[in-house]
């Protein structure tokens, strides 16, 4: 048995096994519990990184659950793929790596962060289910399983948002999230059913090969775009995101960011691979750009006025999701127009993918820093903190790395990705770079405000005894900080090996189709 062939199965099996076994591990005491938690998260990261490496050079991994052979998509002369299909190309692998890295960092962080609380028997299974759901969303090859994995991830995230059930705000945030998310899920299911009714299949590759551009397809595309944009927290539908980010435990919030990335993956996959003709027409591109710009500006403006540190970070997530949507919208528009514009579109998509990775690591690290501050001081209010840089030097340093990375200060990774997005956005409309610049400046301003309020100034009398976070939490934060620094120091390597392949894979739906239809 060649392990490399079965990697896509391991990707979902490992977190699921972790989630099934964790109630047993919890009952064996603290050490076993912690080792188990970190070990399974590390295995997940290993599988994710291995998949990322396996897709270098444009390979597409196909896996058939329950097939006579792992790659036999069309058994006994069927004319379209049956069974549960996993299909991972270089584009999906980017998001898989983001999710698994954030899951590992969040697990390391949570080992110490959640120590003071009971309920580990519930926390660990939900955490692994959330990981499995997000990874499955990025790996799956059919619409219905996308729905199933999205529901798996959202059920786990409702549970984790309302994890501290003795806290009214947490329960309320969980219920709100659940209410809107259920409506969205049902709309996604209606779209899937409509596609099935017309084409008799739910497989993404097969659907892409036979897709027409009629009225029904337009309705389906509109439904899917609104649902996935909702899940990744775009502007008019962002409230669940900020509430959940504020109320969930911090290690989980780091993962929630990447779960929203997973639905962003679904949005891009649907627009570029399944409905390339409909989405390339211009309307969808402008829709994404308008939605993205609104999220950027609105998110960062709301972030500037927040006093609650986690809610502030939540609004930054909305703002960064806006960058990604804008990048993908610019890509669609530029590629659809043709006539020498393709280069701009390609650059925009590459920048968007780079920014997706920056966003998950930097925002994850920001949430972990917020959690570390909360752990040390016991408050989330910025007004009640002050002078913590002396007591918590490591947290302060990592906060600086993350904030500089995400707000795009020149030597850091965020600068590269934002430059690529807005350099090509200029080709579509000159207002886009201006909006991006304003957003970056405001983001920097809000981070300066947080840094000044929390770390600088005279120490508060109440917080004299505040200690640096324990080693587990620092290890989780350090992992993300190292990844950010790697992205900063070697953007060329990442661009050449990861993002170029990913953008190429996205722009060649015919390869995706051929892999799903049995050709290697």
């Amino acid at each position: 048995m060649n392990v490399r062939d079965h990697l896509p199965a391991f990707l979902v099996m490992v977190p699921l096994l972790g989630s099934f076994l964790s109630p047993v591990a919890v009952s064996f005491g603290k050490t076993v519990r912690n080792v188990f938690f970190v070990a399974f998260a590390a295995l997940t990261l290993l599988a994710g990184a291995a998949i990322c490496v396996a897709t270098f050079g444009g390979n597409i991994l196909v896996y058939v659950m329950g097939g006579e052979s792992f790659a036999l998509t069309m058994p006994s002369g069927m004319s379209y793929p049956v069974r549960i299909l996993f299909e991972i190309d270089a584009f999906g692998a980017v998001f898989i790596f983001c999710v698994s890295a954030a899951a590992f960092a969040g697990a390391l962080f949570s080992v110490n962060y959640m120590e003071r609380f009971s309920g580990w028997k519930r926390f660990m299974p939900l955490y692994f289910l959330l990981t499995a759901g997000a990874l499955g969303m990025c790996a799956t090859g059919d619409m219905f399983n996308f729905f199933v994995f999205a529901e798996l991830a959202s059920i786990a995230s409702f549970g984790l948002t309302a994890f501290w059930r003795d806290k009214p705000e947490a329960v309320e945030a969980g219920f709100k999230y659940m209410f809107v998310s259920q409506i969205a899920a049902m709309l996604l299911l209606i779209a899937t059913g409509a596609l099935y009714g017309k084409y008799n299949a739910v497989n993404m590759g097969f659907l892409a090969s036979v897709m027409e551009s009629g009225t029904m397809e337009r309705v389906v595309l509109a439904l899917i775009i609104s649902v996935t944009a909702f899940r990744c927290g775009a502007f008019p539908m962002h409230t669940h995101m900020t509430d959940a980010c504020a109320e969930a435990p911090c290690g989980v919030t780091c993962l929630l960011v990447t779960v929203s990335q997973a639905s962003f993956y679904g949005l891009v996959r649907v627009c570029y691979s399944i409905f390339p003709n409909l989405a390339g027409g211009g309307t969808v591109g402008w829709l994404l750009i308008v939605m993205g710009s609104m999220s950027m500006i609105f998110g960062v403006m709301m972030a500037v006025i927040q006093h609650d540190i986690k809610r502030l970070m939540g609004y930054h997530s909305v703002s960064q999701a806006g960058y990604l949507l804008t990048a993908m919208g610019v890509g669609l528009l530029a590629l659809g127009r043709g006539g020498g514009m393709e280069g701009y579109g390609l650059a925009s998509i590459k920048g968007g993918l780079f920014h997706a990775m920056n966003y998950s690591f930097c925002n994850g690290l920001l949430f972990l820093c917020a959690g570390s501050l909360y752990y040390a001081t016991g408050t989330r209010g910025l007004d009640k903190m002050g002078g913590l840089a002396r007591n918590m030097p490591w947290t302060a340093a990592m906060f600086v790395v993350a904030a500089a990375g995400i707000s795009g200060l020149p030597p850091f990774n965020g600068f590269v990705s934002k430059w690529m997005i807005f350099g090509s956005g200029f080709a579509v409309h000159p207002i886009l770079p201006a909006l991006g610049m304003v957003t970056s400046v405001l983001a920097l301003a809000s981070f300066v405000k947080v840094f000044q309020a929390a770390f600088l100034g005279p120490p508060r009398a109440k917080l004299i005894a505040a200690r640096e976070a324990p080693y587990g939490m620092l290890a989780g934060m350090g992992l993300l900080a190292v990844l950010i620094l790697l992205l900063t120091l070697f953007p060329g390597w990442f661009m050449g090996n990861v993002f170029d392949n990913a953008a190429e894979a996205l722009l060649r739906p015919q390869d995706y189709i051929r892999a799903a239809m049995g050709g290697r």
Partner: protein
Amino acid sequence: MKPLSVVVTSVFDIFAWFMIVFGVYVINNGHNTPGGGFQGGAIVATFMSFVLVAYGGKKFMTWAREGAYGALELIGLMAFFAFGCLGFPNAFFYNSLAIPHGGTPLSEWLPYCGTISLMNVAVGAEVVGALSLVVYYMYGSIRMVDTGAGMGGERGHDRFDR
């Protein structure tokens, strides 16, 4: 919840067991009739809610064992996972035990459909455990609200803020 009248409890004593038998039948025949693990498991798990309605909350809390249902759930899940792994040289979930047309079975105890019916049994056990636990926990939280009993030693969110 208060217990219902003696009529209900007597009917429960006589007929509730048939519900379990019917549920197990649905689980066991999931591979060739409509039904299967989830449906049968849901039928079996109605037994617990029936106990709650007929005999009332006090008796329910003394009779129900959280650990037993948790164990049932865990065994079901692990068995399901193991049956999935049986197909491994080919692919995860491959039905390697199925007996092809005209072939000889490995053992007469093996069902013809291979892992499908075994997985049905595993899922049935899992669903019985999980749905009974759902009833147990939901009733537990209602009781917590009604009687003002605390969280039972739970250490939740620490309220430095307020």
